[in-house]
């Protein structure tokens, strides 16, 4: 058994009663009131982060099974390796996805300032289907020339690009708008509902045909104001968990008055459009 994404044995080692915590977890998920239906997760990490967080593919699939998720897009944690090009971490993600096929869809994480072209080439031939960028962790501006080139390459091979748009000091709206305009046809998925600069990003980009938002660790008020046609469920495992992610999206659906088909789009349909089923 796993509770809030942690193994029962580890919770027990911490002096926590896993069964009692699982009852709370069920109540949290139920409080969102989401209906049953197909579910996919566009934002999950595998491997080990420099901050100590870690997640193995088999554990993620266990979490997905418990909460009814058929598919998840997976990419590396912040583990760029000695050369800074995520070569080992991306290889681990691809191998994990192959082991758990077809449940896990590998994305390729790159640093636009460190060997991204060869990383994308290796990932494409290895079956990856998307790109992950983290401007805060890798310290680059979303509208830098190298980023535009990198996103252009991903777009040319049909990949969506998931970009961290959560915690961080920089304003995001203008740089992301520049990036979206500089790469016509790009599919940009702004993580965390773009909570790092939510109002400005929503005003600048919510109607842009190439911009989407994932729900992982987002703010409820932001999700309520974003169009469900542009929202994709995300968990941010192992930082987030499925129960609170379902609660969040369920609350947003209820408050914003999403229709059943809009809920289905957020929970699965938009993922299928962007990543494939």
């Amino acid at each position, binding site marked *: 058994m796993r*509770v*809030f*994404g*942690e*193994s029962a044995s*580890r*919770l027990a*080692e*911490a*002096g*926590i009663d896993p069964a009692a*915590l699982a009852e*709370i*977890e069920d*109540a*949290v998920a139920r*409080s969102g009131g989401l209906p049953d239906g197909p579910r996919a997760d566009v934002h999950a990490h595998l491997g080990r982060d420099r901050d*100590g*967080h870690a997640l193995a593919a088999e554990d993620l699939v266990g979490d997905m099974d418990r909460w009814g998720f058929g598919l998840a897009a997976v990419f590396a944690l912040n583990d760029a390796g000695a050369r800074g090009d995520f070569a080992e971490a991306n290889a681990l993600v691809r191998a994990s996805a192959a082991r758990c096929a077809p449940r896990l869809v590998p994305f390729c994480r790159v640093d636009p300032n460190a060997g991204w072209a060869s990383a994308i080439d290796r990932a494409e031939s290895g079956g990856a289907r998307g790109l992950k960028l983290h401007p805060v962790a890798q310290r680059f501006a979303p509208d830098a020339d190298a980023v535009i080139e990198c996103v252009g390459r991903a777009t040319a091979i049909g990949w969506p690009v998931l970009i961290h748009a959560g915690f961080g000091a920089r304003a995001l709206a203008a740089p992301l708008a520049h990036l979206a305009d500089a790469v016509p046809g790009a599919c940009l998925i702004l993580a965390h509902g773009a909570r790092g600069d939510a109002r400005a990003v929503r005003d600048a980009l919510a109607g842009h045909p190439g911009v989407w938002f994932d729900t992982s*660790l987002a*703010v*409820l*008020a932001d999700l*309520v104001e974003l169009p469900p046609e542009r929202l994709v469920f995300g968990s941010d495992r*192992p930082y*987030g*968990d499925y*129960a*609170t992610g379902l*609660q*969040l999206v369920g*609350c947003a659906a*209820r*408050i914003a008055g999403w229709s059943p088909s809009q809920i289905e789009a957020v929970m699965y349909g938009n993922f299928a459009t962007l990543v494939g089923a």
Partner: protein
Amino acid sequence: MRRTDALRLVAALGAIEMALVRRDDVAGPLLAQAARAAAATPVDTWVAEAARLMRAPGCFGDAPHEMARRSAVQALCRASAQGAQAALLTGTE
């Protein structure tokens, strides 16, 4: 949930979220305070459990079981914050 209770909880849990990420000892007292503020609200069980888990030693350590405990506390705080935010947005009285 009364809107004043929801507002109090949203403010408190936002500060607690950051304290937990920064492994700041102030998270424990803040959570105890939040648990009192949450009494008799729909999220009282979740905040109380988070506060109870925080009282155990080792919540900020790097051992796997300590990280698991912290992760559970964070999830409970997130659930509570989202419940309170929903009450604020729907104007539940």
